[in-house]
């Protein structure tokens, strides 16, 4: 127990000293195992982890889904998604904010990254909102929050990583995210309604569109719809695995971008390299987290913790609720993916031994990450918008995002209380 606690302490210390988290986890994992077992064993298991993570067919799902999102972003489909949402709901009060959320949900069905979704929307939706006189706080808040739908609505990079680390079926995780994702989108729209009814002049309605305009806009997104149906439908229906689906999706998105003449040799190269870089960054984290988890699993900590928790005599739902509180608090100050990778070796065995469904817990994990991504002071989506929109102050973004943080925390409670919301769709996959 003590060794593992010292290990966690050392990681936080190194991280505070600005050592990249992957390196901190890797160093502590190897040194910890070297000291508690033996150095040859530590070296052997580390090289084994690097080798096995590198040579892994199923893990090609990660770069392929990243690639799919980047191709689609390049093809400019986000504009059409936003336009399609706008022609239907833009004339309502706060209509552009609603349309932004809807477009984020749509974009989230092709892109598995929260940051990429928020970043794309800042180019697509922000100019329109600014033109109509939306307040900076509402428009940035809605983009930051809407962006997080990218990881709940499948495909989702976070779900893939959770699935790999915990050996949970990725297809089921994807299916489990659909209902919570759509509910979260609706809850965010409700938050927009509340905010705009208190402060109507900050979100003037747009013009009402005619049905022929609507028809044109819908025709603009048929390609996205087709791609989503084939990829997600194929995975859900068991036609192909998540990895195969990712390959089909990336190829489809590539052909799509090609057909729209959105690709040059240069931009193709850029997209591929950018996707590869993201992949390498994620794999460094994944390898380091596995090395660290191997060390933690060798110590008595997971067992001790399980025993301690059973001793407390809390009811299982209370235990999960307590974990969620820890995650939400940690998420305000920590980078979310590393937070999850660090804690999974401890929390996941407990959750499973309590008899809970790993798929449900995966959805909860995604939700706490969503909250962490937009909760000040350390929320990555907020920083990204701050970088992309330099004239908006960070404080303004913080102010605008609060209602959405509250909504997401409420959504988390709902998902904890009603597992059926997450587990209903995957239940048809057996």
């Amino acid at each position, binding site marked *: 127990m003590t060794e593992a606690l010292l290990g966690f302490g050392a990681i936080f210390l190194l991280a505070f000293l600005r050592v990249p988290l992957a390196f901190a986890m890797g160093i502590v994992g190897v040194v910890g195992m070297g000291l508690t077992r033996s150095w040859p064993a530590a070296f052997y298991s580390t090289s084994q982890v690097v080798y096995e993570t590198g040579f892994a067919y199923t893990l090609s799902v990660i770069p392929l889904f990243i690639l799919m999102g980047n191709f689609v972003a390049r093809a400019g489909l986000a504009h059409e998604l936003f336009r399609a949402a706008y022609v239907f709901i833009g004339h309502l009060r706060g209509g552009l904010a609603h349309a932004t959320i809807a477009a984020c949900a749509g974009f989230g069905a092709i892109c598995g990254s929260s940051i*990429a979704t928020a970043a794309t929307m800042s180019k697509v939706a922000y100019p329109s909102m600014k033109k109509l006189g939306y307040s900076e706080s509402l428009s940035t808040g809605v983009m930051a929050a809407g962006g997080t739908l990218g*990881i709940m609505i499948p495909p989702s990079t976070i779900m893939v990583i959770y699935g790999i680390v915990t050996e949970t079926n990725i297809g089921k995780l994807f299916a489990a995210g659909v209902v919570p994702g759509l509910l979260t989108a609706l809850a965010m729209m409700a938050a927009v309604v509340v905010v705009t009814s208190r402060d109507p002049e900050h979100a003037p309605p747009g013009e009402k569109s005619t049905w022929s305009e609507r028809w044109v806009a819908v025709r603009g997104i048929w390609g996205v719809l087709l791609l989503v149906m084939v990829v997600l439908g194929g995975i859900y229906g068991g036609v192909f695995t998540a990895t195969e689906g990712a390959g089909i999706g990336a190829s489809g998105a590539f052909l799509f971008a090609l057909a729209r003449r959105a690709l040059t040799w240069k931009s193709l190269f850029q997209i591929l*390299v950018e996707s590869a870089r993201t992949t390498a960054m994620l794999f460094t984290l994944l390898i380091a987290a596995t090395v660290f988890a191997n060390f933690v699993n060798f110590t008595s900590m997971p067992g001790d913790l399980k025993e301690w928790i059973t001793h407390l005599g809390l009811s299982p739902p209370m235990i999960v609720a307590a974990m969620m509180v820890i995650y939400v608090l940690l998420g305000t100050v920590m980078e979310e993916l590393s937070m999850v990778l660090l804690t999974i070796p401890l929390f996941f065995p407990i959750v499973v031994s309590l008899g809970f469904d790993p798929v449900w817990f995966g959805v909860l994990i995604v939700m706490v990450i969503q909250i962490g991504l937009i909760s000040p002071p350390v929320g990555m989506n907020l920083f990204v918008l701050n970088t992309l929109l330099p004239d908006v102050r960070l404080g303004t973004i913080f102010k605008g995002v609060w209602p959405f943080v509250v909504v997401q925390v409420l959504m988390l409670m709902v998902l904890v209380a009603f597992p059926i919301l997450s587990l209903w769709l995957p239940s048809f996959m057996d």
Partner: protein
Amino acid sequence: MNRIFEWACGALAATALFCIMALTFFDVGGRKFASASIPGSLEVTELLMVVVIFAALPLVSIRREHVVFDSLDHVLSPPLRRVQAALVNLVCGALLMALAWLMWRTAGEFAQSGETTAQLKLLKAPFIYGMSVLCGLSGLVHLLRFVLRRPDVPVQPQGDRP
């Protein structure tokens, strides 16, 4: 020099990634519609994954895209931050060099046993040597930064973070 290196790593990773995509597409398409898959496509994907990850690794280091906890940056004075950055580069460089050595040793073992992939009988050792070399090059990026005392400006991580 720097540019050529970045381009070479990028080209390697980009080509491998594009091949994985195309390979999966034709393999799955062939299996579903023509009941003929591409032999050995799984293991080729595995080998290509190694290329994607490790060829892009130096680029992640060059662009400072590793996830860092930077909330304390505003607390430290600029000179202190420079010292800190130098030390961090030393630690990262040393770790990557150590990993390069470890993988070189592993590659040696694979070379000796002559282990190949199951279907196409491709030797695995060259790919593990490649892992090692690219790890070493990534380590070199950090060590060069340490030696040259290149100010490590904290930049906002860009790209497709989840």
